[in-house]
């Protein structure tokens, strides 16, 4: 057995995939009386990637943290064995852990603005593992940080090293996080949702970066909720649910020939070109839906040459939305897809008339809408509903679900005449979105993410609108919940004939729900057509680039 503060395993030992680097047997983690990881076993090998996939609460992140000895306060960890390159991790002192972290095990967190210390320079953050493990002197470390940034494809690394994390884009921050984790070239790299907050093209680049590291012999443990992301990198996949590994095997087998129902359900829930017109949730077999009718008469909502210019603090005008026009017909879903900064959300806000366009106009049923004064627009508000990404922040947290829904009813086309009527209609709405009257008294704080989004949909439906603007309505949800919410939205459309202006960064989701699609980039519509036209015969190079970047199960 080697001592824990030994030098990293030599390159020669790690290129082959035969020797085990990490072996975990029967790992259990509990917080108080709750067991969050219930006896899981896996191994990691040099030059290979093990993906641990699961939804929120599956215990995948806790597992990752346990491998660096940071399970958290109050956690009880037990296992038959946790060995890293022959060293026993189960009986490691805090001091010895500090020698292992960063040197033997690199750890990459999800990009959030807060995964790097905002107050320090990027170069100092990248060089911190070097400093902690007494690598070189100050000047050598600064030079190494620049070198590391360059190696993960950060342009102008000298400049970036002097900047602070908030001055970098999400993709560059994620690269800096990776650069810091691989600074000492640790033989094991754990990446916890490394691409979750990133645009698809950036996501593809980050995955390529991890793949390059794998090629050089690093063993990677990839934690993700997204099976299609995993498909690009993983050699082995373990699917976790409620603290147990329900399926574990070679990536090709798990993703294409799953044995377990849960894995099958997860795979079926991923919206894509193949799932159009089918239900995503519920049954394991795909159910074809009846085509709903789109009324191609007068558009319900029409945008004419919308342009929005924001003046920055530096007095420079930035055109965020540039000559955007579209028509949304009755019973139709118009998808707007684009990466961050493409202007899709600004377009949605102008369509909702909560933001004034610099030029251009929005018409509602052929009548002026954006051009009206606030007072004259208010009576028409009930015709346009909205569902946001994070419903919780759009609810008053002190209001009950019942109050949220009845409040929306009162502003609608047919305000309830009595308390009893309001209550009955609120219950009916909740039932329509798959909740029950029992939820009336609940606080939104106590509901799950999927239930909150259902309440948000019930609230949007209450005034009986003809259009609902959905701004990233499923982006914060687990894939199985996302499937249920998407199914609910399509069911409601079939039933009520409501139109959706559907904003998303997720091409799979957009492809699944939309009749017609606008692709936006830098404020402009670069492509416009039916879902089939855009996805099967993309004309614009940017659309093609987006489509190649989308992680697909087929590529595994």
């Amino acid at each position, binding site marked *: 057995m080697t001592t824990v503060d030994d030098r990293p395993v030599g390159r020669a030992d790690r290129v082959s995939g035969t020797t085990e680097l990490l072996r975990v047997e029967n790992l259990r983690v509990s917080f108080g009386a709750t067991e969050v990881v219930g006896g899981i076993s896996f191994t990691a090998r040099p030059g290979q990637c093990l993906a641990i996939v699961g939804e929120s609460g599956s215990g995948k992140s806790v597992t990752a943290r346990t491998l660096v000895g940071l399970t958290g306060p109050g956690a009880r960890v037990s296992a038959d064995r946790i060995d890293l390159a022959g060293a026993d991790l189960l009986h490691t002192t805090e001091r010895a852990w500090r020698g292992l972290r960063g040197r033997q095990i690199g750890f990459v*967190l999800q990009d959030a603005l807060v995964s790097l210390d905002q107050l320090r320079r990027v170069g100092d953050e990248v060089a911190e593992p070097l400093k*902690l493990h007494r690598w070189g002197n100050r000047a050598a470390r600064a030079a190494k940080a620049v070198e590391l940034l360059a190696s993960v494809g950060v342009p102008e690394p000298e400049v970036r090293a002097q900047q602070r994390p908030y001055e970098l884009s999400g993709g560059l921050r994620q690269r800096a996080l990776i650069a810091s984790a691989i600074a000492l070239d640790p033989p094991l790299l754990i990446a916890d949702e490394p691409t979750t907050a990133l645009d698809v093209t950036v996501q593809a680049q980050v995955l390529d970066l991890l793949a390059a590291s794998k090629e050089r012999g690093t063993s990677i443990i990839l934690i993700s909720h997204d099976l299609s992301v995993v498909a690009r990198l993983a050699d082995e996949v373990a699917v976790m649910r409620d603290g147990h590994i329900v399926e574990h095997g070679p990536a090709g087998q798990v993703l294409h020939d799953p044995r377990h129902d849960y894995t099958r359900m997860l795979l079926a829930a991923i919206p894509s070109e193949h799932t159009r017109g089918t239900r995503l949730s519920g049954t394991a077999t795909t159910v074809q839906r009846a085509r709903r009718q789109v009324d191609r008469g007068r558009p319900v909502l029409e945008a004419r040459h919308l342009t929005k210019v924001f003046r920055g603090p530096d007095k420079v005008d930035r055109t965020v939305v540039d000559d955007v026009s579209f028509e949304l017909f009755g019973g139709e879903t118009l998808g707007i897809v684009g990466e961050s900064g493409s202007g899709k959300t600004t377009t949605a806000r102008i369509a909702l008339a909560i933001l004034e366009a610099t030029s251009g106009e929005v018409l509602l049923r052929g009548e002026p809408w954006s051009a009206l004064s606030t007072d004259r627009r208010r009576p028409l508000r009930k015709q346009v509903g909205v569902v946001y990404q994070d419903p919780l922040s759009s609810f008053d947290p002190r209001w009950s679900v019942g109050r949220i829904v009845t409040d929306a009813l009162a502003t609608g086309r047919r305000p309830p005449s009595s308390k009893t009527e309001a209550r009955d209609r609120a219950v009916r709405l909740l039932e329509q979105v798959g909740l029950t009257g029992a939820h009336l008294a609940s606080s939104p704080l106590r509901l799950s993410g999927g239930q909150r989004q259902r309440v948000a949909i019930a609230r949007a439906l209450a005034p009986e609108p003809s259009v609902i603007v959905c701004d990233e309505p499923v982006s914060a949800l687990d894939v199985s919940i996302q499937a249920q919410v998407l199914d609910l939205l399509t069911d409601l459309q079939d039933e009520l004939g409501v139109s959706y202006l559907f904003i998303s960064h997720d091409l799979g989701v957009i492809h699944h729900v939309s009749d017609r699609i606008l692709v936006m980039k830098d404020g402009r519509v670069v492509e416009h057509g039916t879902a089939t036209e855009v996805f099967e015969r993309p004309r614009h190079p940017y659309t093609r680039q987006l489509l190649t970047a989308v992680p697909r199960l087929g590529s595994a």
Partner: protein
Amino acid sequence: MSRLRRIAVKAVTSVVVIVAAASVTFFAQLAVPGDRANTLMNLQTGQDKKWSVDELAPLNERFGFDDPVIVQYLDYVTGLFHGDLGTSYTQKRPVTEVIGGQLLPSLTLTGAALLVAWALALGITLLTVKRGRFLTSLGTTWEALTASLPHYWVGVVLLVVFAVQLRVFPIIGGTSALGTVLPVLTLAIPLAGFLGQVTRDEFEQVLQQPFVTTARTRGMSDLGVRVQHVLRHAILPAITLSGWALGALVSGAVIAENIFGRPGIGQVLVTAVNTRDLPTVSGIVLVVAAIYVVANLLVDLAYAIVDPRLRAA
């Protein structure tokens, strides 16, 4: 360019604040019931009666009480820009002179109290936030207790225990270093509790942030994480409050200076209020306002150094 502009805007705002404070004190003087010359005559002669117009004429002439209010106001404000705060009724000397000699001991006292308060607050925070149930409750109890203590109570207890009983420090220490210890502690202890409470809340929040986990996964020790990452984030609210705290310390100094018989503007203020020496009272109010303004400028500066995000914004 925009940086120069921001500084210019700050400077102009500061002047406006001081002039506004001066205007308020000026009109407050007018609002005090009774004829000012009559009050003054009573003060100077030690009598309490109604004086005749002729008797009051020299005083009215000397202080310009007969001029229209607007002229008096303009004279006063113009005087301010020349460093003239008026003449003390009781001491018959310029107010600037009356305050000037006493200002330094007061500033020493408040400045030292602020530094000691910070040191106490940070030390206790670093050692007790999320350090097990016992240490954490010890820290929170100490902070809640001290933050709620009034200055006069702390002062008297310190005086009785350390000066009268234990005789470690002099009872009346003047401005000597040893004599400054107890007045400084009188002001610093309640403030430390208050700053500690604010810092602790922030510290707990920051400890949960992902970048703290990132630092730990690089092999950093718990103390390292606290000192090198968390502390810098956690002191931001306390910095903001320090501008306000410095102003509050000046009023606290009035009490501390009285308890320990220490010279300072606190003593001058109490005497001036008791003798209705309005120009002196106004002068002190203005000096305190100016201290507030300078303190807040310093806070802005410190904030920008600790949090570079503000420089960009």
